[in-house]
């Protein structure tokens, strides 16, 4: 038994060492093209845009839900869409705004319903693209360990594909269309995701289960943020995300309670009502928060009516 345990232990150590070695990233350039790397371009745009700006932030509902140029044309102010991914979480988005918003900027918070604190690995990944974003979230050891192994697995997979393609000159398994679609190059200069405009709808939109009502903890965080914005001369408004009609019907009661809580407790002015942002299911692309081109056109038109008074 002793011999068995010793040898098994030694084998695990050897395997772990090889895992770490084989998990070295041999093709770091691939990360430049990844969807989340769009944060680099968005922050570059923020840096190079002088004066007052209109900033939209949120998860992918706003990345896939805005025609910034149309807003820009009406407002006469540059518009930057900061939306990327819902799993970055509320605190991350608010801390990002605190880092980039300037006096007189107008900020629209277009947040997915009951937005939570997101996924640590995703936030940590963002700091690889944009080192400054490491300050938008709190680091923790368990999360770092999880992230480390997650990267190693990812690198090993990629290195295996590289090796196989070198060995056979045949390339790795082809990415699905969806993988190719979700890429940094899919965003336009304003930060809107547009690569799906020409794509056929991939199938049924991904459903979500029914919401269960709970008082949203995000209200307090938004109120704290509002105080910061007031102190720093930043105008902030709250928007509801675009939502498919069938999903809205399914969750109507809970969403109305959510709306009622916001009206009662939220310091940030709320623009419109949830039903103002409900669209036919056919206007969504692949998930319940991702509008297609026509959906984006209709949503932007509706949005312009609602925010006209706030962007002049």
């Amino acid at each position, binding site marked *: *038994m002793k*011999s*068995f345990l010793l*040898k*098994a232990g030694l*084998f695990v150590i*050897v*395997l772990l060492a*090889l*895992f770490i070695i*084989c998990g070295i990233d041999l093709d770091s350039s691939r990360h430049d093209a990844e969807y989340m790397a769009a944060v680099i371009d968005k922050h570059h745009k923020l840096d190079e845009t002088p004066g007052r700006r209109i900033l939209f932030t949120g998860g992918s509902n706003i990345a896939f839900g805005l025609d910034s140029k149309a807003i820009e044309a009406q407002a006469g102010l540059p518009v930057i869409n900061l939306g990327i991914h819902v799993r970055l979480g509320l605190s991350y988005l608010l801390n990002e705004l605190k880092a980039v918003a300037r006096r007189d900027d107008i900020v629209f918070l277009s947040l997915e319903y009951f937005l939570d604190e997101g996924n640590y690995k995703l936030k940590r990944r963002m700091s690889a693209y944009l080192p400054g974003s490491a300050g938008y979230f709190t680091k923790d050891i368990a999360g770092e360990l999880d992230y480390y192994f997650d990267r190693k*697995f990812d690198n*090993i*997979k990629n*290195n*295996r594909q590289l090796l*196989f393609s070198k060995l*056979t000159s*045949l*390339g*790795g*398994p082809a990415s699905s269309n969806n993988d190719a679609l979700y890429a940094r190059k899919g965003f336009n200069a304003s930060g809107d995701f547009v690569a799906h405009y020409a794509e056929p709808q991939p199938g049924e939109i991904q459903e979500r289960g029914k919401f269960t009502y709970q008082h949203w903890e995000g209200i307090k965080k938004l109120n704290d943020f509002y105080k910061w914005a007031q102190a720093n001369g930043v105008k902030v408004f709250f928007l509801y995300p675009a939502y498919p009609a069938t999903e809205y019907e399914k969750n109507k009661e809970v969403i109305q309670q959510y709306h009622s809580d916001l009206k009662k407790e939220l310091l940030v002015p709320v623009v419109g009502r949830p039903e103002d942002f409900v669209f036919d299911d056919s206007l969504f692309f692949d998930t319940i928060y991702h509008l297609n081109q026509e959906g984006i056109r209709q949503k932007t038109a509706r949005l312009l009516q609602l925010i006209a008074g706030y962007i002049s």
Partner: protein
Amino acid sequence: MLFNSAEYAVFLILIFFIYWFPLRSSMRMQNFVLLVSSYVFYGWWDYRFVFLLAFSTFLDYYTGLKIEQATTQRMRKAWLVLSVGINLGFLGFFKYYNFFIDSFASLLGQLGLQPNIWTLNIILPVGISFYTFHGLSYVFDIYNKRVKPTANFVDYAVFVSFFPLLVAGPIERATHLLPQVQAPRKFDYAKAVDGLRQILWGLFKKIVIADTCAEYANTIFNHYGDYNGSTLLLGAVFFAFQIYGDFSGYSDIALGSARLLGFDLLKNFNYPYFSRDIAEFWRRWHISLSSWFRDYLYFPLGGSRGGAWMRIRNTFIIFLVSGFWHGANFTFIAWGFLNALYFLPLLVMNKNRSNLDIVAQGRTLPSIREAISMLVTFVLVVLAWVFFRSPTIQDALHYLGGIFSPDLLQMPQVLPKMVLLLIAFFMLIEWIGRERHFALAGIGLKWKRPLRWGFYCLLALLILSYTGKEQQFIYFQF
């Protein structure tokens, strides 16, 4: 808890230490730990299933004792019928109720009637077909006086619910496993190392081969109308390797896990894709189920004693029942029927037992005749798998029609050469190891340790590089 999950790895390590360290001197305590851990393992899917397993276990334990105690043959038979009836009743309800109701409604519909049929939203308890057959084999063996019932409930419950074999076999026999449960076990270094090797090879089969092939098989089968004949054939070949890698990989992990705890389970696969005829294939594929049907259905039906027609009739019954055992769908019955048809010429010519040895035993390569026989058998098996994989008979027929179309000779539209390379590597190892109880058992044993460990590490790294897209084991649904 899937065998290819981190949860199972932690679970197995934990059980291993509890089992061999504090409890190694007490067989009773070891069995108790095995029982509790097996129920935890099973309850991981859905705690409600545990009650069904416990009831089924108690039923067979109790009726086993009653059969033994019965003083008349009539009473023995009554207890047997009770056990079989309840066991098959549960199996029929959970697995086949909606199938029969739907089929009945469809039949009435075709007669112009519109019945108000009551179907239920029934969750199929994972592994129910396996542990039901475990229990049945026990009561059959007691009834046939092949085994004495155990009075120790824990021992019997471990025999039925032993976690490595609980959800997808091998379907054990009381004559084989129960004596092991009832005997003290000593840690055996060679057996434990062999078990780890078998787990490694099982994970390779499942994660690298089966799950990778599944990606392509699923794409092609789900959109078969979009592909030419050669792609459809390739899709069927991918499914053949998916199901083999999946199920034999599961069995390897099960056997390896059991060996770590000192048990030898029945061998379930014996290199079936190296078979030279369909009879040999069925002696090598899902052996524990085939032998179960042979012993408890084919022989009681008269086996081959009543002449050619009796043999043919019984063979068809076995294959049809075996197909139906796999699931409540006509596709499985068609799959069984097709295999019976394949079997027919061998039965008629009395050649169903002509390939009992290992192909090319003692040689590196097969003869041309053996190679052709293996290829023909493989193609037949692949074509039958189309029925197994398709959602309906119509889909299967369209799929087969698509294969045998003029564009069969065109280049496949999907040609993942990397996957083909992996399959070639896999089959090479299987070929080299075909005389052992599992392919990796003999490979590298004479190599120096760094080389041998290097090979194992290569396999392990390949497994790690393919993790992340784990799919449920196919046979869990049966």
